[in-house]
Protein backbone atom coordinates (compact mmCIF):
# COMPACT_ATOMS: atom_id res chain seq x y z
CA UNK A 1 0.00 0.00 0.00
CA UNK A 2 2.81 2.37 0.86
CA UNK A 3 4.32 1.58 -2.53
CA UNK A 4 1.06 2.43 -4.30
CA UNK A 5 0.70 5.63 -2.29
CA UNK A 6 4.22 6.71 -3.29
CA UNK A 7 3.53 5.82 -6.91
CA UNK A 8 0.28 7.82 -6.99
CA UNK A 9 1.97 10.73 -5.26
CA UNK A 10 4.76 10.74 -7.86
CA UNK A 11 2.31 10.34 -10.75
CA UNK A 12 0.16 13.22 -9.49
CA UNK A 13 3.19 15.48 -9.10
CA UNK A 14 4.38 14.55 -12.58
CA UNK A 15 0.91 15.24 -13.96
CA UNK A 16 0.45 18.56 -12.21
CA UNK A 17 3.87 19.86 -13.34
CA UNK A 18 3.17 19.44 -17.03
CA UNK A 19 1.20 22.50 -18.15
CA UNK A 20 0.12 21.00 -21.46
CA UNK A 21 -1.50 17.91 -19.96
CA UNK A 22 -3.00 19.98 -17.20
CA UNK A 23 -4.59 22.28 -19.76
CA UNK A 24 -5.91 19.67 -22.16
CA UNK A 25 -7.04 17.20 -19.54
CA UNK A 26 -8.41 19.39 -16.77
CA UNK A 27 -9.08 22.92 -17.96
CA UNK A 28 -10.40 22.25 -21.44
CA UNK A 29 -13.52 20.29 -20.37
CA UNK A 30 -14.30 22.98 -17.76
CA UNK A 31 -13.81 25.77 -20.31
CA UNK A 32 -16.06 23.85 -22.70
CA UNK A 33 -18.74 23.53 -20.04
CA UNK A 34 -18.71 27.31 -19.44
CA UNK A 35 -18.79 28.08 -23.18
CA UNK A 36 -21.56 25.61 -23.91
CA UNK A 37 -23.60 26.90 -21.00
CA UNK A 38 -23.30 30.41 -22.41
CA UNK A 39 -24.20 29.37 -25.95
CA UNK A 40 -26.77 26.56 -25.59
CA UNK A 41 -27.84 26.80 -21.95
CA UNK A 42 -31.35 28.08 -22.66
CA UNK A 43 -32.46 25.39 -25.08
CA UNK A 44 -35.45 23.43 -23.80
CA UNK A 45 -35.06 19.69 -23.91
CA UNK A 46 -37.95 18.60 -21.72
CA UNK A 47 -40.30 17.67 -24.56
CA UNK A 48 -43.49 16.16 -23.17
CA UNK A 49 -42.52 16.09 -19.51
CA UNK A 50 -43.77 18.01 -16.51
CA UNK A 51 -40.37 19.46 -15.82
CA UNK A 52 -38.79 22.44 -17.47
CA UNK A 53 -35.47 20.87 -18.28
CA UNK A 54 -32.98 22.92 -20.23
CA UNK A 55 -29.77 22.01 -21.96
CA UNK A 56 -28.06 23.92 -19.16
CA UNK A 57 -28.78 21.07 -16.74
CA UNK A 58 -27.84 18.20 -19.02
CA UNK A 59 -24.57 19.78 -20.07
CA UNK A 60 -23.19 19.56 -16.55
CA UNK A 61 -23.14 15.73 -16.40
CA UNK A 62 -22.24 15.58 -20.10
CA UNK A 63 -19.04 17.50 -19.47
CA UNK A 64 -18.41 15.49 -16.34
CA UNK A 65 -18.34 12.52 -18.71
CA UNK A 66 -15.89 14.38 -20.92
CA UNK A 67 -13.72 15.04 -17.88
CA UNK A 68 -13.62 11.36 -16.95
CA UNK A 69 -12.88 10.29 -20.53
CA UNK A 70 -10.20 12.97 -20.76
CA UNK A 71 -8.45 11.88 -17.56
CA UNK A 72 -8.95 8.11 -17.62
CA UNK A 73 -8.78 7.42 -21.34
CA UNK A 74 -6.93 10.13 -23.27
CA UNK A 75 -4.44 11.27 -20.65
CA UNK A 76 -3.91 7.79 -19.23
CA UNK A 77 -3.20 6.25 -22.64
CA UNK A 78 -0.80 9.02 -23.66
CA UNK A 79 1.05 8.82 -20.33
CA UNK A 80 1.37 5.03 -20.41
CA UNK A 81 2.69 5.04 -24.00
CA UNK A 82 5.19 7.78 -23.20
CA UNK A 83 6.51 5.97 -20.16
CA UNK A 84 6.85 2.70 -21.99
CA UNK A 85 8.55 4.22 -25.03
CA UNK A 86 11.02 6.32 -23.01
CA UNK A 87 12.13 3.17 -21.17
CA UNK A 88 10.61 4.08 -17.81
CA UNK A 89 8.64 0.85 -17.59
CA UNK A 90 11.76 -1.10 -18.47
CA UNK A 91 13.62 0.68 -15.71
CA UNK A 92 10.95 -0.16 -13.16
CA UNK A 93 10.91 -3.79 -14.33
CA UNK A 94 14.51 -3.95 -13.15
CA UNK A 95 13.36 -3.26 -9.58
CA UNK A 96 11.30 -5.46 -7.25
CA UNK A 97 8.22 -3.31 -7.95
CA UNK A 98 5.38 -5.66 -8.90
CA UNK A 99 3.90 -5.56 -12.39
CA UNK A 100 0.55 -4.18 -11.28
CA UNK A 101 2.05 -1.13 -9.57
CA UNK A 102 2.47 1.08 -12.64
CA UNK A 103 -0.98 0.16 -13.89
CA UNK A 104 -2.70 0.63 -10.55
CA UNK A 105 -0.71 3.80 -9.89
CA UNK A 106 -1.78 5.44 -13.13
CA UNK A 107 -5.34 4.11 -12.75
CA UNK A 108 -5.72 5.64 -9.28
CA UNK A 109 -4.04 8.85 -10.42
CA UNK A 110 -6.47 9.22 -13.33
CA UNK A 111 -9.40 8.40 -11.09
CA UNK A 112 -8.35 11.15 -8.68
CA UNK A 113 -7.95 13.66 -11.51
CA UNK A 114 -11.35 12.60 -12.91
CA UNK A 115 -13.07 12.92 -9.53
CA UNK A 116 -11.54 16.35 -9.01
CA UNK A 117 -12.98 17.48 -12.34
CA UNK A 118 -16.40 16.06 -11.53
CA UNK A 119 -16.41 17.94 -8.24
CA UNK A 120 -15.32 21.15 -9.97
CA UNK A 121 -18.11 20.82 -12.54
CA UNK A 122 -20.62 19.92 -9.87
CA UNK A 123 -19.76 23.15 -8.05
CA UNK A 124 -19.58 25.27 -11.22
CA UNK A 125 -22.96 23.86 -12.32
CA UNK A 126 -24.52 24.52 -8.96
CA UNK A 127 -23.06 27.94 -8.23
CA UNK A 128 -23.03 29.47 -11.70
CA UNK A 129 -26.05 27.81 -13.30
CA UNK A 130 -28.15 26.58 -10.39
CA UNK A 131 -27.98 23.02 -11.64
CA UNK A 132 -28.75 20.59 -8.85
CA UNK A 133 -28.86 16.86 -8.45
CA UNK A 134 -31.46 15.45 -6.09
CA UNK A 135 -30.00 13.98 -2.93
CA UNK A 136 -31.50 10.52 -3.41
CA UNK A 137 -29.74 10.24 -6.77
CA UNK A 138 -26.29 11.26 -5.55
CA UNK A 139 -25.23 7.62 -4.92
CA UNK A 140 -26.03 6.85 -8.54
CA UNK A 141 -23.94 9.81 -9.67
CA UNK A 142 -21.02 8.53 -7.59
CA UNK A 143 -21.48 5.03 -8.98
CA UNK A 144 -21.64 6.35 -12.55
CA UNK A 145 -18.37 8.20 -12.09
CA UNK A 146 -16.67 5.09 -10.67
CA UNK A 147 -18.01 2.80 -13.39
CA UNK A 148 -17.01 5.28 -16.09
CA UNK A 149 -13.54 5.77 -14.62
CA UNK A 150 -12.97 2.01 -14.40
CA UNK A 151 -14.22 1.29 -17.93
CA UNK A 152 -12.34 4.15 -19.59
CA UNK A 153 -9.17 3.28 -17.68
CA UNK A 154 -9.38 -0.25 -19.09
CA UNK A 155 -9.94 1.18 -22.56
CA UNK A 156 -7.07 3.63 -22.03
CA UNK A 157 -4.75 0.77 -21.05
CA UNK A 158 -5.92 -1.13 -24.15
CA UNK A 159 -5.21 1.85 -26.41
CA UNK A 160 -1.78 2.30 -24.81
CA UNK A 161 -0.97 -1.36 -25.46
CA UNK A 162 -1.68 -1.11 -29.18
CA UNK A 163 -0.22 2.39 -29.74
CA UNK A 164 3.14 1.92 -31.47
CA UNK A 165 5.00 5.11 -30.48
CA UNK A 166 4.97 8.21 -28.27
CA UNK A 167 4.23 10.34 -31.32
CA UNK A 168 1.14 8.31 -32.19
CA UNK A 169 -0.35 8.63 -28.69
CA UNK A 170 -2.11 12.03 -28.68
CA UNK A 171 -3.50 11.99 -32.25
CA UNK A 172 -4.77 8.44 -31.90
CA UNK A 173 -6.52 9.05 -28.57
CA UNK A 174 -8.10 12.31 -29.75
CA UNK A 175 -9.13 10.84 -33.08
CA UNK A 176 -11.11 8.24 -31.18
CA UNK A 177 -12.88 10.53 -28.70
CA UNK A 178 -13.48 13.81 -30.56
CA UNK A 179 -16.05 12.50 -33.08
CA UNK A 180 -17.72 10.52 -30.29
CA UNK A 181 -18.12 13.66 -28.16
CA UNK A 182 -20.22 15.11 -31.01
CA UNK A 183 -22.49 12.13 -31.52
CA UNK A 184 -22.79 10.79 -27.97
CA UNK A 185 -24.55 13.67 -26.27
CA UNK A 186 -21.59 15.65 -24.97
CA UNK A 187 -21.35 18.55 -27.44
CA UNK A 188 -24.76 18.10 -29.05
CA UNK A 189 -27.95 16.74 -27.45
CA UNK A 190 -28.64 13.22 -28.69
CA UNK A 191 -32.23 14.25 -29.45
CA UNK A 192 -31.08 16.66 -32.14
CA UNK A 193 -29.04 14.05 -34.01
CA UNK A 194 -30.36 12.11 -36.99
CA UNK A 195 -31.60 8.69 -35.86
CA UNK A 196 -29.03 6.70 -37.79
CA UNK A 197 -26.21 8.70 -36.22
CA UNK A 198 -27.45 8.43 -32.65
CA UNK A 199 -28.09 4.71 -32.98
CA UNK A 200 -24.63 4.20 -34.52
CA UNK A 201 -23.06 6.21 -31.71
CA UNK A 202 -25.00 4.37 -29.02
CA UNK A 203 -22.87 1.28 -29.64
CA UNK A 204 -19.66 3.02 -28.61
CA UNK A 205 -18.75 3.56 -24.96
CA UNK A 206 -19.18 7.34 -24.58
CA UNK A 207 -22.94 7.37 -25.37
CA UNK A 208 -23.96 4.86 -22.67
CA UNK A 209 -21.66 6.62 -20.20
CA UNK A 210 -23.29 10.00 -20.89
CA UNK A 211 -26.66 8.32 -20.50
CA UNK A 212 -25.98 6.86 -17.07
CA UNK A 213 -24.20 9.94 -15.70
CA UNK A 214 -27.01 12.20 -16.98
CA UNK A 215 -29.72 10.09 -15.39
CA UNK A 216 -29.43 11.54 -11.85
CA UNK A 217 -29.81 15.06 -13.31
CA UNK A 218 -32.90 14.33 -15.36
CA UNK A 219 -36.01 13.95 -13.21
CA UNK A 220 -37.98 13.08 -16.31
CA UNK A 221 -35.73 10.16 -17.19
CA UNK A 222 -37.30 6.71 -16.88
CA UNK A 223 -35.77 3.91 -14.79
CA UNK A 224 -32.06 3.43 -14.27
CA UNK A 225 -30.56 2.69 -17.72
CA UNK A 226 -29.27 -0.78 -16.89
CA UNK A 227 -28.74 -1.71 -20.54
CA UNK A 228 -26.27 1.18 -20.81
CA UNK A 229 -24.47 -0.04 -17.71
CA UNK A 230 -24.16 -3.50 -19.24
CA UNK A 231 -22.94 -2.17 -22.57
CA UNK A 232 -20.37 -0.02 -20.79
CA UNK A 233 -19.21 -2.97 -18.69
CA UNK A 234 -18.81 -5.03 -21.86
CA UNK A 235 -16.53 -2.34 -23.29
CA UNK A 236 -14.54 -2.43 -20.06
CA UNK A 237 -14.05 -6.19 -20.32
CA UNK A 238 -13.02 -5.88 -23.96
CA UNK A 239 -10.52 -3.17 -22.98
CA UNK A 240 -9.12 -5.36 -20.25
CA UNK A 241 -8.65 -8.29 -22.63
CA UNK A 242 -6.91 -6.17 -25.28
CA UNK A 243 -4.76 -4.46 -22.65
CA UNK A 244 -3.64 -7.77 -21.13
CA UNK A 245 -3.09 -9.40 -24.52
CA UNK A 246 -0.90 -6.66 -26.02
CA UNK A 247 0.74 -5.19 -22.94
CA UNK A 248 4.49 -4.56 -23.27
CA UNK A 249 7.07 -3.43 -20.74
CA UNK A 250 9.78 -2.68 -23.25
CA UNK A 251 9.80 0.12 -25.81
CA UNK A 252 9.32 -0.88 -29.42
CA UNK A 253 12.91 0.06 -30.24
CA UNK A 254 15.03 -2.11 -27.97
Amino acid at each position, binding site marked *: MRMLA*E*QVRADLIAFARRPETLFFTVFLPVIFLVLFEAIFGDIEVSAGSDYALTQSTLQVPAFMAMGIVSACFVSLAITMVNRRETG*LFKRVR*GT*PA*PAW*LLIAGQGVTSLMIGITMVVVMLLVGRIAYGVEVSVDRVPWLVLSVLIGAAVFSCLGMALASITPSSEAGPPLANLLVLPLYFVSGVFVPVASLPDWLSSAASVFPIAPFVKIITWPYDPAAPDIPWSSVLLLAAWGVLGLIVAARFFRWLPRR*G
Partner: protein
Amino acid sequence: MPAVGDAIVVEGLVKRYGDRDVVAGLDLTVREGEVLAFLGRNGAGKTTTTEILEGYRTRDAGTVSVLGEDPAEAGSAWRAKLGIVLQESQPLGALTVRETLRLYAAYFPHPRPVDEVIGLVGLAEQAGQRAGRLSGGQKRRLDVGIALIGRPELVFLDEPTTGFDPDARRQFWDVIQGLRELGTTVFLTTHYMDEAQVLADRVAVLRDGKVAALGTPAELQALRGGVEIRFELPPGVAAADLPVLSAAPDLAGGAVRVETGAPTHDLAVLCGWAEARGIELGNLTVERPTLEDVFLAIAGDHAEAEA
Protein backbone atom coordinates in the same frame (compact mmCIF):
# COMPACT_ATOMS: atom_id res chain seq x y z
CA MET B 1 27.22 -24.98 -10.82
CA PRO B 2 28.16 -21.64 -9.35
CA ALA B 3 30.82 -21.77 -6.69
CA VAL B 4 30.48 -19.80 -3.48
CA GLY B 5 31.89 -16.38 -4.24
CA ASP B 6 30.66 -16.20 -7.81
CA ALA B 7 28.10 -13.49 -8.53
CA ILE B 8 27.49 -14.47 -12.14
CA VAL B 9 28.13 -17.78 -13.89
CA VAL B 10 27.32 -18.13 -17.58
CA GLU B 11 27.89 -21.32 -19.55
CA GLY B 12 27.27 -21.82 -23.26
CA LEU B 13 24.87 -18.88 -23.57
CA VAL B 14 23.21 -18.58 -26.98
CA LYS B 15 20.79 -15.92 -28.23
CA ARG B 16 19.50 -16.07 -31.78
CA TYR B 17 17.81 -13.32 -33.75
CA GLY B 18 16.53 -14.82 -36.99
CA ASP B 19 19.33 -17.07 -38.17
CA ARG B 20 22.07 -15.00 -36.57
CA ASP B 21 23.61 -16.03 -33.26
CA VAL B 22 24.08 -12.68 -31.56
CA VAL B 23 25.43 -14.51 -28.52
CA ALA B 24 27.16 -17.70 -29.61
CA GLY B 25 28.20 -19.92 -26.73
CA LEU B 26 29.37 -17.37 -24.20
CA ASP B 27 31.11 -18.51 -21.00
CA LEU B 28 31.83 -16.07 -18.20
CA THR B 29 32.24 -16.00 -14.44
CA VAL B 30 32.09 -12.82 -12.37
CA ARG B 31 33.33 -13.07 -8.80
CA GLU B 32 31.62 -11.45 -5.86
CA GLY B 33 32.94 -8.00 -5.15
CA GLU B 34 34.86 -7.54 -8.36
CA VAL B 35 34.44 -4.91 -11.04
CA LEU B 36 34.26 -6.66 -14.38
CA ALA B 37 34.53 -4.57 -17.53
CA PHE B 38 32.64 -6.06 -20.45
CA LEU B 39 34.12 -4.75 -23.68
CA GLY B 40 33.32 -5.32 -27.30
CA ARG B 41 32.47 -3.49 -30.47
CA ASN B 42 28.89 -2.51 -31.25
CA GLY B 43 27.08 -5.62 -32.41
CA ALA B 44 29.36 -8.00 -30.51
CA GLY B 45 26.45 -8.96 -28.25
CA LYS B 46 27.20 -6.84 -25.16
CA THR B 47 23.78 -5.38 -24.52
CA THR B 48 21.98 -8.60 -25.45
CA THR B 49 24.10 -10.55 -22.96
CA THR B 50 23.65 -7.91 -20.29
CA GLU B 51 19.88 -7.86 -20.74
CA ILE B 52 19.72 -11.65 -20.46
CA LEU B 53 21.64 -11.42 -17.18
CA GLU B 54 19.27 -8.69 -15.98
CA GLY B 55 16.24 -10.84 -16.78
CA TYR B 56 14.88 -8.65 -19.59
CA ARG B 57 15.46 -11.12 -22.39
CA THR B 58 15.08 -14.85 -22.77
CA ARG B 59 17.91 -17.07 -24.04
CA ASP B 60 17.95 -19.83 -26.62
CA ALA B 61 20.52 -22.09 -24.94
CA GLY B 62 23.00 -22.29 -22.09
CA THR B 63 22.80 -21.87 -18.34
CA VAL B 64 22.86 -18.57 -16.49
CA SER B 65 23.13 -18.01 -12.77
CA VAL B 66 23.01 -14.49 -11.35
CA LEU B 67 23.28 -14.28 -7.57
CA GLY B 68 22.42 -17.96 -7.50
CA GLU B 69 19.23 -17.73 -9.54
CA ASP B 70 18.20 -18.07 -13.16
CA PRO B 71 17.25 -14.54 -14.31
CA ALA B 72 14.58 -15.96 -16.63
CA GLU B 73 12.67 -17.29 -13.62
CA ALA B 74 13.77 -15.13 -10.70
CA GLY B 75 11.23 -12.94 -8.95
CA SER B 76 11.11 -9.70 -7.07
CA ALA B 77 13.25 -10.90 -4.12
CA TRP B 78 16.05 -11.44 -6.64
CA ARG B 79 15.47 -8.05 -8.31
CA ALA B 80 15.75 -6.43 -4.87
CA LYS B 81 19.44 -7.46 -4.86
CA LEU B 82 20.20 -5.86 -8.24
CA GLY B 83 20.90 -2.34 -9.36
CA ILE B 84 20.45 -1.71 -13.05
CA VAL B 85 21.55 1.23 -15.16
CA LEU B 86 20.24 0.80 -18.68
CA GLN B 87 21.96 2.09 -21.76
CA GLU B 88 19.12 4.52 -22.38
CA SER B 89 16.46 5.61 -19.99
CA GLN B 90 14.68 8.77 -19.01
CA PRO B 91 13.54 9.38 -15.46
CA LEU B 92 10.28 11.27 -15.04
CA GLY B 93 11.47 14.73 -16.02
CA ALA B 94 8.93 16.52 -13.85
CA LEU B 95 10.13 14.94 -10.60
CA THR B 96 13.08 16.34 -8.69
CA VAL B 97 16.16 14.27 -7.89
CA ARG B 98 14.93 13.72 -4.35
CA GLU B 99 11.36 12.85 -5.41
CA THR B 100 12.67 10.37 -7.98
CA LEU B 101 14.86 8.59 -5.46
CA ARG B 102 12.07 8.59 -2.89
CA LEU B 103 9.78 6.85 -5.41
CA TYR B 104 12.34 4.18 -6.25
CA ALA B 105 13.14 3.71 -2.58
CA ALA B 106 9.50 2.71 -2.09
CA TYR B 107 10.02 -0.20 -4.53
CA PHE B 108 12.72 -1.85 -2.39
CA PRO B 109 12.38 -3.69 0.92
CA HIS B 110 15.45 -2.16 2.62
CA PRO B 111 16.37 1.02 0.78
CA ARG B 112 19.29 3.27 1.55
CA PRO B 113 18.26 6.67 2.90
CA VAL B 114 17.60 9.01 -0.02
CA ASP B 115 20.07 11.63 1.21
CA GLU B 116 22.82 9.04 1.54
CA VAL B 117 22.35 8.08 -2.12
CA ILE B 118 22.27 11.73 -3.18
CA GLY B 119 25.66 12.08 -1.47
CA LEU B 120 27.03 8.88 -3.02
CA VAL B 121 26.36 10.10 -6.56
CA GLY B 122 27.32 13.71 -5.81
CA LEU B 123 23.99 15.38 -6.55
CA ALA B 124 23.56 17.24 -3.24
CA GLU B 125 23.39 20.60 -4.99
CA GLN B 126 20.82 19.34 -7.49
CA ALA B 127 18.62 17.47 -5.00
CA GLY B 128 15.70 19.86 -5.46
CA GLN B 129 16.12 20.23 -9.20
CA ARG B 130 13.82 18.53 -11.68
CA ALA B 131 15.36 15.54 -13.44
CA GLY B 132 14.43 16.97 -16.83
CA ARG B 133 16.67 19.98 -16.21
CA LEU B 134 19.83 18.09 -15.21
CA SER B 135 22.83 17.92 -17.52
CA GLY B 136 23.58 14.64 -19.28
CA GLY B 137 26.19 13.65 -16.72
CA GLN B 138 23.96 14.55 -13.79
CA LYS B 139 21.06 12.54 -15.28
CA ARG B 140 23.33 9.56 -15.57
CA ARG B 141 24.40 9.93 -11.96
CA LEU B 142 20.74 10.07 -10.93
CA ASP B 143 20.33 6.85 -12.90
CA VAL B 144 23.15 5.29 -10.89
CA GLY B 145 21.55 6.64 -7.72
CA ILE B 146 18.34 4.81 -8.65
CA ALA B 147 20.41 1.66 -9.12
CA LEU B 148 21.99 2.08 -5.67
CA ILE B 149 18.88 2.93 -3.67
CA GLY B 150 18.03 -0.70 -2.89
CA ARG B 151 21.47 -1.60 -1.44
CA PRO B 152 22.26 -3.89 -4.39
CA GLU B 153 24.79 -6.74 -4.20
CA LEU B 154 25.28 -6.56 -7.95
CA VAL B 155 25.15 -3.50 -10.19
CA PHE B 156 24.85 -3.56 -13.97
CA LEU B 157 26.08 -0.45 -15.74
CA ASP B 158 25.51 -0.36 -19.50
CA GLU B 159 27.79 2.25 -21.09
CA PRO B 160 27.26 4.63 -18.18
CA THR B 161 29.62 7.39 -19.28
CA THR B 162 28.76 7.74 -22.96
CA GLY B 163 28.56 11.43 -23.79
CA PHE B 164 30.30 12.60 -20.59
CA ASP B 165 32.88 15.34 -20.55
CA PRO B 166 36.22 14.39 -18.93
CA ASP B 167 35.32 15.96 -15.56
CA ALA B 168 31.99 14.18 -15.38
CA ARG B 169 33.70 10.92 -16.29
CA ARG B 170 36.22 11.26 -13.47
CA GLN B 171 33.48 12.08 -10.95
CA PHE B 172 31.62 9.03 -12.16
CA TRP B 173 34.68 6.86 -11.71
CA ASP B 174 34.83 7.99 -8.09
CA VAL B 175 31.27 6.75 -7.65
CA ILE B 176 32.22 3.32 -9.01
CA GLN B 177 35.32 3.21 -6.82
CA GLY B 178 33.03 3.94 -3.89
CA LEU B 179 30.86 0.98 -4.88
CA ARG B 180 33.86 -1.29 -4.92
CA GLU B 181 34.71 -0.18 -1.41
CA LEU B 182 31.18 -1.12 -0.35
CA GLY B 183 31.86 -4.63 -1.65
CA THR B 184 29.37 -4.35 -4.49
CA THR B 185 29.92 -6.49 -7.58
CA VAL B 186 29.91 -4.32 -10.71
CA PHE B 187 29.25 -5.51 -14.24
CA LEU B 188 30.39 -2.59 -16.36
CA THR B 189 29.75 -2.46 -20.09
CA THR B 190 31.83 0.22 -21.73
CA HIS B 191 33.46 1.45 -24.92
CA TYR B 192 36.24 3.26 -23.12
CA MET B 193 39.52 1.45 -22.52
CA ASP B 194 40.76 4.04 -20.06
CA GLU B 195 37.62 3.44 -18.02
CA ALA B 196 38.22 -0.32 -17.98
CA GLN B 197 41.87 0.24 -17.11
CA VAL B 198 41.07 2.49 -14.16
CA LEU B 199 38.05 0.67 -12.76
CA ALA B 200 38.16 -3.00 -13.66
CA ASP B 201 39.61 -5.87 -11.69
CA ARG B 202 39.15 -8.00 -14.77
CA VAL B 203 38.25 -7.31 -18.37
CA ALA B 204 36.26 -9.56 -20.70
CA VAL B 205 36.51 -8.78 -24.41
CA LEU B 206 33.58 -9.93 -26.46
CA ARG B 207 33.85 -10.85 -30.12
CA ASP B 208 31.17 -12.40 -32.31
CA GLY B 209 29.05 -13.33 -29.30
CA LYS B 210 31.82 -15.09 -27.35
CA VAL B 211 34.36 -14.04 -24.75
CA ALA B 212 37.54 -13.74 -26.80
CA ALA B 213 39.80 -12.77 -23.89
CA LEU B 214 39.42 -12.50 -20.13
CA GLY B 215 41.89 -11.32 -17.52
CA THR B 216 43.19 -8.42 -15.46
CA PRO B 217 44.14 -5.38 -17.53
CA ALA B 218 47.82 -6.32 -16.98
CA GLU B 219 47.24 -9.90 -18.12
CA LEU B 220 45.50 -8.71 -21.27
CA GLN B 221 48.30 -6.28 -21.99
CA ALA B 222 50.81 -9.12 -21.62
CA LEU B 223 48.96 -11.02 -24.36
CA ARG B 224 50.23 -8.55 -26.85
CA GLY B 225 53.86 -9.71 -26.98
CA GLY B 226 55.28 -7.43 -24.30
CA VAL B 227 57.05 -4.14 -24.74
CA GLU B 228 57.74 -1.90 -27.70
CA ILE B 229 61.10 -0.12 -28.11
CA ARG B 230 61.18 2.65 -30.68
CA PHE B 231 63.91 4.96 -31.85
CA GLU B 232 65.18 6.68 -34.97
CA LEU B 233 67.92 5.07 -37.01
CA PRO B 234 70.96 7.33 -36.44
CA PRO B 235 72.27 9.12 -39.55
CA GLY B 236 74.92 7.12 -41.37
CA VAL B 237 73.93 3.88 -39.69
CA ALA B 238 72.48 1.07 -41.79
CA ALA B 239 69.89 -1.35 -40.42
CA ALA B 240 72.41 -4.13 -40.75
CA ASP B 241 74.75 -2.30 -38.36
CA LEU B 242 72.28 -2.57 -35.43
CA PRO B 243 73.14 -5.05 -32.71
CA VAL B 244 71.36 -8.41 -32.59
CA LEU B 245 68.27 -8.14 -30.37
CA SER B 246 65.86 -10.79 -29.08
CA ALA B 247 63.39 -9.88 -31.82
CA ALA B 248 63.94 -8.66 -35.36
CA PRO B 249 63.42 -4.89 -35.67
CA ASP B 250 60.74 -3.38 -37.91
CA LEU B 251 61.87 -0.51 -40.09
CA ALA B 252 59.60 2.14 -41.52
CA GLY B 253 61.51 5.03 -43.06
CA GLY B 254 64.02 6.04 -40.43
CA ALA B 255 61.93 4.69 -37.53
CA VAL B 256 62.88 1.44 -35.84
CA ARG B 257 60.37 -0.57 -33.80
CA VAL B 258 61.21 -3.67 -31.80
CA GLU B 259 58.48 -5.67 -30.06
CA THR B 260 60.28 -7.61 -27.40
CA GLY B 261 59.61 -10.06 -24.61
CA ALA B 262 62.99 -9.21 -23.05
CA PRO B 263 63.05 -5.43 -22.87
CA THR B 264 65.76 -5.14 -20.20
CA HIS B 265 68.21 -7.28 -22.14
CA ASP B 266 67.47 -5.62 -25.45
CA LEU B 267 67.74 -2.12 -24.00
CA ALA B 268 71.08 -2.96 -22.38
CA VAL B 269 72.45 -4.31 -25.67
CA LEU B 270 71.10 -1.37 -27.63
CA CYS B 271 72.34 1.27 -25.21
CA GLY B 272 75.74 -0.39 -24.89
CA TRP B 273 76.02 -0.44 -28.65
CA ALA B 274 75.05 3.21 -28.99
CA GLU B 275 77.27 4.31 -26.10
CA ALA B 276 80.30 2.52 -27.59
CA ARG B 277 79.79 4.43 -30.84
CA GLY B 278 78.98 7.75 -29.17
CA ILE B 279 75.53 7.79 -30.76
CA GLU B 280 72.50 9.41 -29.18
CA LEU B 281 69.36 7.41 -30.14
CA GLY B 282 66.74 9.94 -31.27
CA ASN B 283 63.21 9.68 -29.91
CA LEU B 284 63.96 6.61 -27.84
CA THR B 285 60.78 5.31 -26.20
CA VAL B 286 59.88 2.16 -24.31
CA GLU B 287 56.17 1.44 -24.04
CA ARG B 288 53.84 -1.28 -23.03
CA PRO B 289 50.93 -1.70 -25.46
CA THR B 290 47.84 0.05 -24.11
CA LEU B 291 44.68 -1.83 -23.32
CA GLU B 292 43.28 -0.09 -26.36
CA ASP B 293 45.89 -1.75 -28.63
CA VAL B 294 45.02 -5.08 -27.07
CA PHE B 295 41.32 -4.46 -27.49
CA LEU B 296 41.69 -3.52 -31.15
CA ALA B 297 43.68 -6.69 -31.77
CA ILE B 298 41.22 -8.97 -29.95
CA ALA B 299 37.88 -7.36 -30.76
CA GLY B 300 38.45 -7.71 -34.48
CA ASP B 301 38.28 -5.38 -37.44
CA HIS B 302 34.76 -4.16 -37.51
CA ALA B 303 35.74 -0.56 -37.78
CA GLU B 304 32.66 0.22 -39.83
CA ALA B 305 30.42 -1.01 -37.02
CA GLU B 306 31.85 1.66 -34.73
CA ALA B 307 30.46 4.50 -36.80
